[in-house]
């Protein structure tokens, strides 16, 4: 590609896709300095704008691959914009930005060496979804591959982190190693060294990236790893004999969870509930063509619903030794350091009442309702509990011990009735049509968490179960599909706007409007 005699040689174009604050400016400077030292004419430009505030941005670099002294004083004219299809290298520090560049039609499979990080920095849109809004990494990789002449993929952020440096140094290493630019390694390292502060770390990052590109097959393997999905582990328990092997992994996990949550007896209740679904599925799907998919999902969601979150559970989880270790690891605590951990709790009346028997609980809740009626805030107790202190942990263990009185609380009772309602809905649905049962089982996914979140998700599940599942004059298949759409809609936004839209389309009744105290603001007449 680099033909120093040819005067028809064309400039080499490099597009750098990065996020604001990743040192793309430094990278541009490095490239310009290297080009100068190597004796080539070059140009770099960028469009930072306000992208320094974590937004997406690009940097553009062009180099004329004939040494200046062979140009007889003539100056190459460089472009300030990339030309679609005429890029020699595209390098991206983040996979979505690589895909964005690809979808803009800039790289092309006949010319472009495409170097991309496999790491993702999730966009707000992806993070705010209630379910899983993350883009499919393998799809993005495939997209990038499809417009590459040569394709390198590796986790640049990891390499940068491992070498305690910034991603720009890693990108330079990859770029230099790709061999498209007439840069020799020593020169690159010399320029980095002149950077002074942090140069050593940068050099390590540079070298690591160079290695990565040097050994192609490794990247292929890594890209593959990402495309593969992680399989579940399998475990066996005597109590579980008699259940089909297809569901064993889920079932054993679920059984452990429920046991750990309450006790053996509760675990037995779990197994019997799963059994009832299994029987229903066996009846409906005699040839078990679906590999007991409904029972499998049911054993997942049932376990999670039965081990519903409450302060007891939270206190238990937060006061385990394993958890202390996890925090030490996440906060990168060195042995010589001292660690203090504060838990952010804000239990309200409903959470506390949930643990109490009906008469007492009702009185408490009534009192809380009264407060709201008077325009006051619902009562709650914000605590920053110091779990690293003996007292703090002792308190947590005390609450965790309430696990034995949980059974007598109203929350437990409520959850069990709802679970039974769901269970029978699934079984009934199964009798009508296997798919209908399956979709109903998956509605367990809507059951989430704690406090307000839990209330909201519960309403969604019940509404779908009671209204969408039983709409009349429709075939089970239609209803199954309706349930799927409603369920997916319910996961998209908090307010349930999507759900309402879908419900409307399906002709199902809209969700009942929740009473919410809004302070009325009468505007007293303006003084002038």
């Amino acid at each position, binding site marked *: 590609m680099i033909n120093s005699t040819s*005067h028809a040689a064309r400039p080499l174009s490099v597009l750098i896709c990065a996020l604001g604050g990743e040192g793309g400016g430094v990278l541009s*400077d490095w490239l310009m300095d290297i080009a100068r030292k190597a004796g080539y004419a070059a140009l*770099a430009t960028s469009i930072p*704008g306000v*992208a320094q*505030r*974590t937004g997406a*941005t690009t940097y*553009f670099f062009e180099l004329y691959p004939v040494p200046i002294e062979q*140009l007889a004083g*003539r*100056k190459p*004219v460089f*472009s300030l914009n990339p*030309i*679609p*299809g005429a890029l020699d290298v595209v390098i991206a520090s983040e996979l*979505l930005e690589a*895909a*964005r560049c690809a979808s803009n*039609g800039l790289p*092309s499979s006949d010319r472009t060496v495409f170097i991309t990080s496999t790491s993702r*920095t999730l*966009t*707000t849109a992806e*993070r*705010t979804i209630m379910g*899983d809004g993350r883009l499919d990494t393998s799809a993005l990789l495939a*997209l990038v591959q499809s417009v590459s002449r040569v394709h390198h993929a590796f986790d640049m952020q990891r390499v940068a*982190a491992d070498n305690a440096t910034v991603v720009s140094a890693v990108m330079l290493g990859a770029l230099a190693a790709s061999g498209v630019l007439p840069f020799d390694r020593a020169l690159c390292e010399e320029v980095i060294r002149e950077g002074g502060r942090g140069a050593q770390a940068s050099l390590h990052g540079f070298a690591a990236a160079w290695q990565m590109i040097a050994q192609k097959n490794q990247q292929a393997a890594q890209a593959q790893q990402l495309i593969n999905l992680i399989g579940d582990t399998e475990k066996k328990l005597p109590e579980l004999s008699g259940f089909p092997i297809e569901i064993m992994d889920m079932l054993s996990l*679920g059984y452990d969870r429920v046991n750990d949550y309450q006790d053996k007896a509760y675990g037995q209740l779990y197994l019997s509930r799963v059994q009832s679904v299994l029987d229903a599925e066996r009846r409906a799907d005699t040839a078990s063509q679906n590999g007991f998919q409904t029972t499998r999902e049911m054993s997942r969601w049932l*376990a999670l619903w039965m081990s519903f979150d409450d302060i007891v559970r939270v206190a238990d*989880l*937060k006061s385990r*030794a*394993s958890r202390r270790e996890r*925090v030490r690891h*996440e*906060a*990168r605590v060195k042995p*010589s*350091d001292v*660690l*203090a*951990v*504060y*838990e952010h709790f*804000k239990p309200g009346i409903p959470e506390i009442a949930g643990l109490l028997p009906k008469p007492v609980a009702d009185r408490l809740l009534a009192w809380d309702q009264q407060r709201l009626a008077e325009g006051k805030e619902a009562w709650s107790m*914000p605590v*920053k509990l110091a779990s*690293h202190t*003996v007292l703090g*942990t002792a308190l947590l263990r005390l609450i965790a011990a309430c696990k034995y009185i949980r059974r007598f609380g109203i929350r437990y009772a409520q959850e069990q009735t709802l679970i039974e309602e769901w269970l029978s809905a699934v079984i009934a649905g199964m009798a009508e049509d296997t798919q209908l049962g399956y979709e109903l089982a998956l509605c367990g996914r809507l059951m989430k968490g704690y406090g307000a*979140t*839990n209330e909201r*998700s519960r309403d969604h599940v019940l509404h779908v179960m009671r209204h969408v599942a039983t709409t009349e004059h429709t075939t089970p298949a239609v209803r199954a599909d309706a349930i799927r759409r409603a369920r997916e809609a319910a996961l998209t936004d*908090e307010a349930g706007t999507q759900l309402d839209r879908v419900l409307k389309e399906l002709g199902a009744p809209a969700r009942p409007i929740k009473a919410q105290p809004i*302070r009325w603001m009468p505007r007293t007449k*303006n*003084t002038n």
Partner: protein
Amino acid sequence: MEISFKKQIQQLKLGEGEVFHGEGILAITKALLQSGVSYIGGYQGAPVSHLLDVMVQARELVGELGVRVEACSNEASAAAMLGASIHYPVRGAVTWKSIVGTNVAADALANLSSPGVTGGVLMVIGEDYGEGASVVQERTHAYAMKSCMLLLDPRPELSVMVDMVEHAFAMSEASNMPAMMELRIRACHVRGSFVCKDNRTAAVSTKSLMSEPAPFNYSRLAHPPVTFGHEKRKIEHRLPAARQYILDHKLNELHAGEHDSVGIIVQGGLSNALLRSLQQFGLADAFGQTQVPLLVLNVTYPLVPDQIAHFVENKKAVLVLEEGAPEYIEQEIATLLNRRELPTRLHGKDMLPVAGELTPEVMMGGLQQFFAQHLPAIDTMQVKAALDATVARRNSMASKLDQTLPARPPGFCIGCPERPVFSALKLAQKDVGEVHIAADIGCHSFATFEPFSMGHSILGYGMSLASRAGVSPMMQRRVLSIMGDGGFWHNGLLTGVQSALFNGDDAVLLIFKNGYTSATGTQDIISTPTTQLKTQTHDKLASLTANNRTIEDTLAGIGVQWMRTVHSYRVATMRDVLKEALTTDFNGLKVIIAEGECQLERQRRIRPWLADLLSRGQRVMRVKYGIDDDVCNGDHACIRLSACPTLTLKDNPDPLKVDPVATVIDGCVGCGLCGENAHAATLCPSFYRAEVIQNPHWHEKLLSGVRQRMLRLLQPA
């Protein structure tokens, strides 16, 4: 300031024959010194912030040259500064981003260009247009025409840009017209090199003062009746003088080419894109040697009729490559052809899109049509194929994706003190209902993006309070106006606060007092904590904005009766104060000041300090927030309330659960918002605050050791 320009400042000292390597905007800065300016001013804004930032940081160096550097309070004050050159033979330069800055400066510019200037005047204009732009899409060109100012649009080649700066001053003096030089974003940030000249000390400077003021001269005032004379002079003297200068010094470049039946007239700033496009047709080589005649307009106003007439005569057709709308240049040329009865066919926006940037891809499309029609001998099929291939590629990409890729707009930084306020506002609106939000220019306008999606209007910098004057009287609920301290000083105090008070408006103003104009690169303003304070303060971790009360004192002085200052990280308090402001019986102007230093500046200050403490083995506490995977309910309500870049998702480690859990990744600066939100919004109890004490005191170690041992007894595995 966000960036330190130590290295670049050294380059400003370079002398005759030495080679400057660096960014376009810094080359321009060097060129100003080479042109012997006496004063420099301006208002920061991408893409020209660096010019002013460098100058402010280089006050010492430029001081030696006797140059006065003024960081003006807005573009109007920068433009007014140029008034010095009306009477006195001093060269002055100012800078700002356009179109917005030029709009703000317009009044002063009109009154400057009416009497005209004696000393050379140059405005370095960041033409913030197209990809990466952050302002409205209008052309500075209109101002050059309406106020009769020179407009230069140099070829984006450092040596050319630098020469043009020196010519701009000379031409401004020769024609008495103020000069503007528009630089597109990519031109400001282009990296290249040029051979320097020595910096020039001006005859009149802070080093050699004028002894007497100029004698009174009514004709130097923009005041009737002399303004009528000014109008005549513009037409009869100044424009001709400018045109003569352009011809004499060959500022516009004429390139001959064998295909002389056609020609292309192009704005200088676009010429690189044009040459690269011509290369694709095989009509130019890598060094800009073209086969099609070109007229490159490094000066786009005024045009030189004779030059253009001479270029187009005996040509079948010419194509005008002009960016933006309306196509003023093309229209002027059309008039010219018509008046001179020249038969040449004129093309431009008929073959190119009227709106949007003229990137090489877009140009190639226009050129392909032009050549196909007027140079049939040229094979344009190859280019056409390439263009079609690109379109095909885009479509196939789109078809491969089952959804459009999510955008990644700029957002609040990690630990930004403005994010918590919008969390609080989100919560407040849950109680008092949705309110009309008059938004403004500044980092806080990032709240218009997800997950906040707040702000009904943006009427300009510091305009939020003024922009609700017509809304709030018509609205049952109160209206909230949001303003940064940058906007407040830029003009919000006068256009907003003063007007609201004078009219006794029932208004609510939320001021973000983060201490800097952060969005443009954290430049200092009058309410910035003093350097002295930064160095002397004992607790460097604390936000220092509270120590500068200029905003509070000003508001009190002008007569604001209802004012609350809240630390921006106190989400619950902020929520309650917002609710109070929106519901109180007090009918006048209510001002809430959200106190919290810009995190970028705070980190710039404390990072080296902490590093130093650690290296000296001293006690340092580091805070990181975390989330318990097994408690997190995968509902992501916390992210919808904050969207901090370090609060993101990871695969759920629990094989039973499918939805990803929230996680706090490295980079968390421990601002505390997660905890505040968890409480204020009653989120799930999965958040914990980890305080890591490095180099702890001996008794802390001892206590912790004892605790560890006892906890082991209490805790199950």
